[in-house]
Structure formats: C-alpha cells, structure tokens
C-alpha cells in the first residue's frame, strides 16, 4: 500500500468563451514512504498543476474541474473537506515552491512565517516556537538563525530564502514533501547545495519526496522512480538507472538527447525536440507527442496509444517505442493496458533497481520477480 496513490488525476480549466484546457489528463503514479519520485517534463506538461491538485491549492473558481483520485494513506485528498485538508497540509504533506522570493510574504518577518506553521500544527507558542524555529533554520543551514528570524525576505539571499522555505516545509516532519522546481530559480552552485539539503533531509527523516522538475540532471541526482509527463499524461515510468540507460518513449529519448552530456563524443551534436509543448494532439485522437515525434507512424494518430508494461517492470505509452538493441520490438512486452488505463500501476519497488546489463537476459529474471 503506497503512501500516495494518484489515479487518473485530471484537471480541466474551463474559461468563459474559450475552449476548456485539459492541463492534467489522467495522470497516475504512486509514492511510497521514504521514496523519492520524480515528475519530469517540459514546462506546460502539467507537472505543477498535478502537485497543486494534490495539495488542493488550485484556485477555487467555477470552471476548475478536478477528477480522479489522490489517496494519501487511505484518505482521498480530493474528497475531503477544506478543514481537514488544511489539517493535512503542512503537517503530513508539505510543499516547496519554485521562486523563493515571491513565495515568501514580503511584509512579514521570516520568524513569524516559520513559527506560524508550528503554532498551527504543533500548537507551539511564543518562546518555544521561536526557539524551535531557530533550530529549524539552523537545521536547513541558515547561519545566525536568531537574527534571521527577525529579518524580512528581501534581506535574505536567494539560497537563504529557499532554505527558509524548506525549513517551513519540514517544520512538522511531514511524511510527504512535494518540491516543485525547487532549484530552478537559483544559480547553479546554490542548486547543488539545496539538492544536497533536500537529500539528507529525506534521508534522515524518512520523508517521501516528490521532485517536480524539467531538469533531468536533478532527477538523475536523487530520484528512485521517475515519471515522464507529456501533455498531461505520464508517458513513461521507470526506475532511475533503466530510464537513463534505456529510454523507450521517444519523448524521453528526446529529453535525454537534448541534455548536454560530458561523456558525449566530440562533434556529437545535441538534437533538441522540434516544436513546442503547445502543438500537441488531444490524447483521445492519438498520441499527444505525435506532432513532434521523430518515430511517428500512422498508428500514432487515430486512437490513444496503449500503455505497455515490460518485463523489466517499466511502462510506456507508445506504439513505436525506441528499440532495445538485441530485442525485436515488442519482445519484452509483458502486458498491454488499453489506452484509457493508467501507466505506473506497476508497483515500482517490484522493479529491481538494476536491470540486467545484458538486454538479452533481461526477460527471464524479471519474469520471476514479477511472479
């Protein structure tokens, strides 16, 4: 039983006299206690919306439709009432946002912004709260926390701000932490530090982490399982190593090959994915990625591609996946779920973190494991 089970999550924005937008279209994935899961995709693929939907932070306006399930140990977050959702937020599930400056209230001292969580969820007040807050800041590596408590966001550096935000997030040792592009707004050196910080936090607190990013580098650094999103659906799910070694979905391939790599030979050029996220095909009429896809075939268009589960416990949504050298296409296919069904329904930990180095031998062991 996973800590968080997201099933068929869909979010649509209906605006007056404009066509409704399906930002998230049947995303499913699951997170286990203490696991680090990545949601990867270009901006606009629905990563952030997904996280907001789970947190119930989407604007409460007529026209915003949320469907599906998000079960957090037993309770469906999408069903519960506002009050109990507020109780869960910040205590059981915490979130870290992209832009630390705009995510902090400019006119309230850091201290209060930290202590208010403690007061809300741990009923701490006055001195006690202040003391705890100081410790938290110290824990996230903010020097001279006592003074910082009194300072305002604009007096802190970018990194400091993000640390402060993290401090607030982990203030109640949540069981799940959602980090939405936590490092994008920071410069590289800081990025590394923040990632380190997050890593050790989840390590020693056993907090599960959902890492939302467009940056495969980040994912490679820390995620156990990775879900690649495109056009509001998960198009491929796999453990970290296999995904990087053997991407199957052309989109994943594209993403990987558009990341500069040190080990790339000289002269070898980056080949970015043509076009942009905007020109996608609505899933019902085929594979959303088809318009940009290098491996497009006629079958791509017409009906949504089926979800393919492989013997090595991965899943992808493609009719013409990137071939695995030495395997005839479809050879490793274990099961095919019809288009409407969800990827990632394979319990991720059932998948060995290290698939056999030799593709040829892959089929057999994985079979045993799955049985």
């Amino acid at each position, binding site marked *: 039983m996973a800590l968080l089970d997201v099933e068929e999550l869909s979010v649509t924005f209906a605006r007056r006299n404009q066509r409704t937008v399906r930002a998230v279209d049947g995303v499913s994935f699951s997170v286990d206690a203490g696991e680090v899961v990545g949601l990867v995709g270009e901006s606009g693929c629905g990563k952030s919306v997904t996280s*907001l939907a789970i*947190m119930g*932070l989407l*604007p409460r306006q*007529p026209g915003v439709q949320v469907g599906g399930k998000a079960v957090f140990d037993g309770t469906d977050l999408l069903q519960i009432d506002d009050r109990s*959702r*507020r*109780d*869960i*937020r*910040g*205590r059981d599930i*915490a*979130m870290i*946002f992209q*832009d630390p400056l*705009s*995510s*902090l*209230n*400019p*006119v*309230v*001292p850091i201290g*209060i912004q930290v202590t*208010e*969580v403690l007061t*809300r*969820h741990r009923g701490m007040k006055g001195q006690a709260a202040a003391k705890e807050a100081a410790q938290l800041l110290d824990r996230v590596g903010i020097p001279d926390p006592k003074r910082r408590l009194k300072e*305002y966001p*604009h007096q802190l550096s970018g990194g400091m701000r993000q640390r402060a*935000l993290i401090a*607030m997030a982990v203030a109640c040792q949540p069981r799940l932490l959602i980090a939405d592009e936590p490092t994008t707004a920071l410069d590289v050196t800081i990025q590394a530090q923040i990632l380190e910080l997050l890593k050790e936090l989840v390590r020693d607190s056993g907090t599960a982490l959902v890492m939302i990013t467009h940056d495969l580098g980040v994912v490679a650094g820390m995620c156990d399982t990775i879900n690649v999103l495109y056009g509001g659906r998960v198009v491929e799910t796999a453990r970290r190593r296999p995904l990087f070694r053997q991407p199957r979905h052309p989109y994943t391939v594209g993403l990987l090959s558009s990341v500069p790599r040190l080990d790339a030979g000289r002269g070898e050029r980056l080949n970015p994915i043509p076009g942009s996220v905007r020109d996608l095909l609505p899933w019902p009429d085929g594979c959303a990625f088809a318009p940009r896809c290098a491996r497009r075939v006629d079958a791509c268009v017409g009906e949504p591609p089926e979800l393919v589960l492989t013997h090595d416990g991965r899943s992808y949504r493609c009719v013409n996946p990137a071939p695995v050298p030495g395997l005839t296409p479809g050879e490793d296919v274990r099961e095919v779920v019809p288009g409407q069904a969800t990827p990632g329904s394979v319990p991720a930990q059932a998948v060995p973190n290290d698939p056999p180095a030799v593709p040829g031998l892959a089929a057999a062991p994985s079979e045993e494991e799955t049985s």
Partner: protein
Amino acid sequence: MIRFIVRRLLQLIPTLFGLSILLFIWLRRLPGGPETAILGERGTPEMRAAIRQNLGLDEPILIQYGRFVRRMIRLDLGTSISTKREVTTEFIQRFPGTVELTITAMVIAIGIGIPLGYLAARRRGRFLDHASVGGSLIGICIPVFFLAYILKAIFSENLGWFPSSGRQDPTLGATRITNFFVLDGLMTREWDAAADALWHLILPGLALASIPLAIIVRITRASVLEVLNEDFVRTAEAKGLTENVVRRRHVLRNAMLPVATSIGLLTGGLLSGAVLTETVFAFSGIGAFLAEAIDHRDYPVLMGFIMIIAIVYVLVNLIVDLSYSLIDPRVRVR
C-alpha cells in the same frame, strides 16, 4: 526615521515658497478688489480709492509680498477683510469642523470600503462583487452636491432622522473648548452635546465619503485580487494555515499597501468635496468659508487658508509615507 521626517518637512519649504508666490500672483490678478467687497452698493469711486490706499493695495507688489511672507513665518495670517477677525482665529474656529467632517467621512469610507472591497474580491464575479463595483462607479459619477441634497431631502426633510444643517443644535448651549464639538462634549461630560454633534456629522459625512468610499472599494478589490494570486499566499495555504490567518497576515496586509497610498491622495479630494458638502449642509468649516472668501476677494483668508491646506495636505502624505514604511519593510525610511 526622525531624519526622514525632518527632511520631508524641509522639503516643504520650497514647495510652500513656490506656492505662496503662485498664490500671490493669482490673488493680485483677480479682477476687482477687496475695496468694493467692503463697500457694497454704497461705494463711490472716491471711497474705493480711499480704501485701496488704506489697504496698502497700491504699494509695490514686492513690499506687499514681503509683508505677507513675514507674517506667514510668524504664523500671523493677517485679518480677514470680510469678517475683520484674525485669519488664524477664523481657522481655529472653523478647521475643527472640517477635520471632524473629514475624519467621519474617512472612517465611513475606510470602515465600509475595505471590507466591502475585500469581500468583492473574494466573491469575484458573484452578485456582491458586481453590486459593490457598480455602486462604487455610481459613487464616483454622482455630483457630490447633488448627492448631498438628495440625502438631506430624504433623511432630514422627509424622514426627519437627521438634522439638515449646522454642527450642533444651538439650543443646547454646549461648552466650547477645542471646537471639536464631539471631543468637547466628551471632555465636559455634556454627553447630549457630543451625541448631537456626532448626529450632525453623519449625513454630511456620508455625502463627503461617497467618492473616497468608491475609490477605496475599487482599490482594495483590485489589490486583494492581485495579492490572492501571489505565490506567498499559495505558500501560506500550503502550510495549512487557517483561513483567518491567511486572510489577515498574508492577504490583507499586503493588499493594504496601495490602499494606504490612495488614502493619502484622497485627502486633497476630500477638501474639495468639503467645499461643496459644507455649503449644502451649512456646516461651519473651512470649505464653506473658502467659498465665501473667494466671493469676497478676502485676500488674507484665501492666502492663509490655501497655504494651510497645502501644509495639511503635505503632512497627511508624510504620515501616509510613514505608515507605509511601517506596513512595508521594503520601503526604507532614511
């Protein structure tokens, strides 16, 4: 902080100087002159000449201006030509009325405007929102004096709920100390007098409040809407804070910034409104008095009053700046 205030006060000086010059030129350019105002129907040209001479109106402008400035510095604004009383006395007598009126108007405007604006923003697109936005539009578009008249006709002439003019029922013979009637009433424990004075403030207060109220509603609504999609509000929500805390600490406090500035800018408008409101309600304040002064070409009064209003106006803005720097730590007060 202190240095900031001092600097701002120093900045006043050139403004006031320029203003006094503008005023002076303006006053001299006015057609006619005080002499006829004094004489009325009975004036013969000879008498007028005599008065011009008496009033020193035919001395060189510079000398007259010099005299004026010397006076200003001694805060002696001269004597009103029409009432023959010291302008400062007049001011002490009448300004409290306007202050009371303005404060009432502001209390009404802020007290109703901010909550209404906030609710409108939260219920965006619902009835309350449309109602308050529409209402505020009309509030801006209706001529103050007409509104004032309507209020009077309805609430005092027909329903008789409120007195239709003046600051207090003269038959009470209330004691005067500061000329802030409400305050006086409280200080002398003449509760009935205080209540009566307050009662007299409500209708004109409403009339005067119409425009600021409208503006505050709109600004509050706009800025709350803006703040509501700010990231830090989302953060606050993500922390699971109670609606109450989110509203107070995170939404309102930030939304207040633009409102604070607008309030400062509104005072100028309020003083204009006072001219009309006070005239309609025969309310003894500087607004009505200014209108009279212009009728009578009452130079000293005009000079003094406009200067004082300018000072008050600038001071109010100073206060707003200070309050602003209190709400918003990013604004450094140096």
